[in-house]
């Protein structure tokens, strides 16, 4: 397993958010995490990426413990993420946004920058090339000099993915990447997710409410309800699991159409 959670529990002021979750993502896999609203999906992302510290349990990436790491250290070790509500650096250019991802793969400090050392210049060139390559990969070549905030919403989501890819991750966490996209954009997103795995070898873990997208793109699906994992399997078996249907009862129609 690339990512492994063992007996992870998280609570806020006595409210249990995650309860003894055992969960794993295999290398090179497209894996989805689904569940009703409030099931604890985003909390799980925040625990994995170091934004929340679980009270109990262990998390490893490639065998390395990441459970007490700060978010920036987790990213450096190889997990990148996007946010549920797009969080770009709005007043900066698209290219500058993507370059942020390269920060943890470079090291020049203030003195190297002021003196413009050859190593610093070479590093800047590499940051630029990698970032442009990531932008090209998500299909946004030509938009690099525009302000992030001026981009159409669907494009902003792609910039966020490019920025995450620029961290050169082993595992990419996508938090509701299809939210707010139209059907054409969703189709393109499915292709993009597949290409991320096929061409870059990056495992993808996504949280998504759009069931047709989840069933279409996932190789494995885990279902979270009230902070516990209730089942896991391939799309077909999860779709027909009575526990899953029960968990979704009372949810809105879109999710019932499982």
């Amino acid at each position, binding site marked *: 397993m690339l990512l492994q959670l063992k007996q992870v529990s998280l609570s806020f002021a006595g409210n249990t958010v995650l309860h003894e979750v055992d969960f794993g993502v295999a290398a090179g896999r497209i894996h989805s995490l689904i569940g009703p609203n409030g099931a604890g999906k985003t909390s799980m992302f925040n625990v994995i990426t170091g934004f929340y510290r679980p009270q109990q349990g262990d998390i490893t990436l490639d065998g390395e413990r990441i459970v007490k790491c700060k978010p920036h250290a987790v990213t450096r070790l190889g997990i990148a993420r996007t946010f549920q509500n797009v969080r770009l650096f709005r007043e900066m250019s698209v290219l500058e946004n993507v370059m*942020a991802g390269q920060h*943890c793969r470079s090291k020049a400090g203030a003195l190297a920058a002021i003196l413009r050392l050859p190593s610093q210049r070479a590093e800047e060139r590499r940051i630029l090339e990698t970032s442009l390559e990531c932008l090209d990969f998500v299909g946004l070549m030509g938009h690099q000099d525009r302000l992030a905030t001026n981009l159409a*919403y669907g494009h902003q989501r792609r910039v966020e993915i490019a920025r995450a890819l620029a961290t050169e991750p082993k595992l990419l966490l996508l938090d509701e990447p299809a939210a707010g996209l139209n059907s054409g954009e969703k189709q393109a997103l499915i292709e993009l997710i597949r290409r991320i795995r096929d061409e870059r070898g990056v495992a993808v873990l996504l949280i998504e409410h759009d069931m047709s997208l989840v069933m279409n793109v996932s190789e494995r699906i885990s279902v979270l309800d009230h902070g516990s994992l209730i089942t896991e399997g391939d799309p077909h078996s999860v779709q027909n699991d009575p526990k899953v249907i029960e968990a979704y009862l009372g949810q809105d129609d879109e999710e019932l159409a499982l």
Partner: protein
Amino acid sequence: MDKHSPPTPTDVDEHDAGRAKPRHPLQKLYAAFESPGRRRALHLTILAILIVTPWISSQYTTVILTNALLYVVLCLGLNVVVGYAGLLDLGYAAFFAVGAYTVGILTQQFGVNFWAAIPFALMAAALAGVIIGGPTLRLRSDYLAIVTLGFGEIVRFTARNLEITGGASGLSHIPEPSLFGWHIDSSIDFYYVFVVLAVLAYIASQRLFDSRLGRAWLYVRHDEDAAEAMGINRVATKLAAYVTGAIFGAIGGIFFSVNLGAISPESFSFQQSVLILLAVVLGGMGKIPGVILGAFIVVLGPELLRDFGTLRLLIFAVLLLLIMLFRPSGIWPEKRS
């Protein structure tokens, strides 16, 4: 996109972005110097003016301009902290003081050569930056402002009460430096020293801004969580801004002390910190040409208004208020609109 839906604002924007005409006069000026060739010509012109000025103006003007150039160095340093990293610092004069006092003490009391004393002054300033920054950078910016204000006052009171710093009367007879046989002592000599420092501070600011670290400061200022998620250590990044700013301040202080030959705690008052911050905010935080303009306005403004006698500070204050009223984000326009 649905063909029948009306164009969204972003669609319109896409077509007009390249054709938008800058309206503000300064914006036009900025646009005129977008090309590298013109920018180079502008740099050379400004440099030529700076070199020639002391030969065609009075000694009084030279001294005032020297002070303005000192402010350029200090303001560009504070701009790294406030403008780039977004950390409000109300005690910046403390770093200025650390640089000035370290060199003053080492050269005047211990007979250390001026140039040999510089590395110690820079190290002292960096250390001061870490000491104040380390424990406080986790604070929100308004609390940080209060802590830095306190730090500035602590440094000033320490200088006033220690024997080694000369107490309230400060240090005097700080020896003037020489460089390869050139004894730097006249006001024109020091003017040129500060021209060199201001140019170096300008180049350093520009290079920092265009670097990995410079971008990291902006990321952290814009969205700390997103920056962390991108693998940027926000505490280390803010600390780097603090230390960089401290070193700029110390360099200003080092040459300030040998220029005047005497320093006292009152040279590093809260008012000094506020004036430097004022110049940065006035010019436009994070915008290098704006900050330089701000430094000149803060120093030259009261001098140009000297004809108004006792009213000059009042008039200056009203002018500043008017500027902030009409240009709340600083005189210099945004690079992209």
